[in-house]
């Protein structure tokens, strides 16, 4: 059983998701219990895989072979689909499982029964399966399939509230972007297949020669994954999507953008690691700066709390691109500050998931209580909802990178690494953080300060518990970041930055 943990972490939410509507026919409680079991199972499986990978190295799991370790057929090339979990994949899996463990129990209380709760839970489970698949797979076409699974599940969740006029519009817009992104990715895979006749990521990586077709495919990969990760200038679907999806489910959408970024790292470092020059690295850095600045200014103009938080989330994508982009630029020389920037960018993925997740839960609570997210109508909620106000404050400060919270722990690494690459990069990143602080101070003031208003509806306790878990996580990661950086982030960064040959030899042998 434990030998099959990687595939079970994908198969259980996939099949379990489809079984959810059937179990709901029996009884609602059985369905709720079932969903919780699925998420718990994924958590345990992901945790087991992570411990295994961090202690014993890359875990390769071959599907359809006589035994899961039979990676290559006679002749020395892989023909079967395989899951390849290295430290980075395991780290991505941990982030996903963590957010799922927080989001699903809250969703059970948050989603109203008459608004199709069963189907929302099903879609959430499918989205979870897709994200886990993207994080674990070692096959290019398989990655495309999981990419499309997440696209369909995510867009169905975004357009879930068909009785409002805004949700289907946001979903249509997002689906259009996701479809184009998926097709670009497929085209890139087709180019590589046409040239090398292989789909296995490690095998194609060995064969890559850097021809014109390879470069074209790289451009398509970059376009597809940046689009899906909501980097500027193709970020405009994200605020609509985050704003319209049931807020608890927006947590999974955040992880969805991060796993697209993870796919980008995988393509850049592992697939193209052998032939990449610094131009692509600087391109990623430029995209990062553009994303963080544009999104922060857009956040400044928002009057809807959900959209404001969504733009804050998009700007954090820019920090990850900046950190890892600096690592990419310096990959040939391997100075130590490159690894510092890489660590910052990757650590920020975890921190961003926690802070943005907490912010979206706060938005959900505010919407539940007041029925609106418009900052012009909100105000004075701090009296009735002191705990939500506190959580919102903690998350805003963490997102703006104020010590001693977790956002600071990762941003300081990004500042340090990018400063050594070029002081201008660090200056832009710091200034953007200050701007974000102003934006969120205004949002906090608009929603929670002001004259006392009556609050009739209580926030259900599972949502408060989920918020509390995230807030504690933010504090712990901020106060003692060293332990987590050493245990998980450094291996993950090294797996990308230095570990290409390990990845290739784990799959191909030798």
């Amino acid at each position, binding site marked *: 059983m434990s030998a099959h943990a990687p595939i079970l972490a994908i198969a259980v939410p996939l099949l379990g998701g489809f079984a959810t509507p059937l179990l709901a026919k029996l009884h609602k409680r059985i369905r709720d219990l079932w969903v919780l079991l699925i998420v718990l199972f994924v958590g345990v499986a992901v945790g087991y895989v992570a411990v295994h990978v961090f202690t014993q190295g890359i875990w390769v799991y071959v599907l359809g072979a006589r035994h899961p370790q039979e990676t290559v057929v006679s002749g020395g090339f892989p023909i079967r689909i395989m899951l390849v979990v290295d430290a980075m994949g395991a780290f991505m899996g941990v982030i996903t499982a963590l957010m799922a463990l927080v989001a699903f129990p809250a969703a059970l209380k948050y989603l109203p029964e008459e608004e199709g709760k069963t189907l929302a839970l099903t879609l959430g489970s499918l989205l979870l399966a897709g994200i886990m698949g993207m994080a674990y797979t070692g096959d290019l076409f398989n990655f495309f*399939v999981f990419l499309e699974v997440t696209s369909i599940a995510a*867009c169905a969740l975004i357009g879930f509230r068909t009785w409002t006029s805004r949700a289907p519009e946001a979903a*249509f817009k997002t689906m*259009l972007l996701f479809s184009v992104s*998926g097709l670009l990715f497929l085209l890139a895979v*087709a180019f590589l*297949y*046409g040239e090398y006749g292989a789909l296995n990521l490690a095998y194609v990586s060995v064969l890559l020669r850097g021809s014109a077709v390879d470069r074209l495919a790289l451009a398509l990969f970059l376009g597809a994954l940046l689009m899906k990760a909501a980097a500027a200038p193709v970020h405009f679907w994200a605020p609509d999507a985050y704003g319209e999806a049931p807020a608890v489910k927006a947590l999974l959408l955040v992880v969805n953008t991060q796993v697209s970024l993870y796919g980008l790292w995988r393509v850049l470092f592992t697939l193209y690691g052998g032939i990449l020059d610094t131009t692509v690295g600087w391109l990623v850095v430029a995209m990062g700066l553009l994303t963080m600045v544009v999104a922060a200014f857009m956040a400044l103009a928002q009057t809807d709390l959900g959209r404001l938080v969504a733009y804050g989330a998009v700007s954090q994508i820019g920090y990850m691109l900046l950190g890892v982009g600096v690592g990419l630029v310096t990959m040939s020389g391997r100075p130590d500050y490159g690894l510092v920037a890489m660590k910052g960018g990757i650590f920020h993925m975890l921190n961003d998931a926690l802070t943005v997740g907490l912010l979206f839960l706060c938005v959900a609570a505010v919407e539940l209580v007041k029925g609106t997210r418009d900052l012009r109508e909100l105000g004075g909620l701090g009296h009735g909802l002191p705990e939500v106000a506190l959580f919102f404050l903690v998350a805003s400060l963490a997102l703006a990178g104020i010590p001693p919270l977790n956002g600071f722990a990762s941003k300081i690494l990004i500042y340090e690494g990018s400063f050594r690459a070029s002081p201008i990069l660090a200056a832009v990143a710091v200034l953007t953080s200050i701007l974000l602080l102003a934006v969120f101070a205004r949002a906090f003031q608009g929603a929670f300060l002001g004259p006392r208003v009556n609050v009739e509806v209580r926030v259900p306790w599972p949502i408060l518990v989920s918020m509390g878990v995230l807030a504690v996580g933010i504090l712990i990661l901020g106060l003692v970041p060293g332990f987590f950086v050493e245990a998980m982030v450094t291996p993950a960064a090294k797996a990308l930055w230095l570990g290409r040959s390990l990845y290739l030899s784990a799959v191909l042998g030798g």
Partner: protein
Amino acid sequence: MIGNLPFVVCVILVALGLWTLVAKRNLIKLVIGIGLIESGVNLFLVSLGYVHGGIPPIYTYAPSGAPMVLPTPQALTLTSIVIGVATTALMLAFAVVIYRHKGTLDARKIRDLRG
């Protein structure tokens, strides 16, 4: 020359699809644009696997030594078609819902979300 014809058609299909996405404002036409790009990519995949003079890749019926077309791109295309059906259906469903709310399919008039 004639062997390259499928690839020319792929380029035309993808270009037409992209042009549709950029130039058209009707939601149904946007979905058609996605469909065109998808057909182009699928055709590209199938064409990649063609071996000149190849026979269907069924080992039990093949005479020994005969060249076969590659089976993998066909499997990929089949998967991609299935995924395409799902995305198209979902997008059309959203278009129907939008039409019920707004009474129009013109993307310029459907602007609740901006900024």
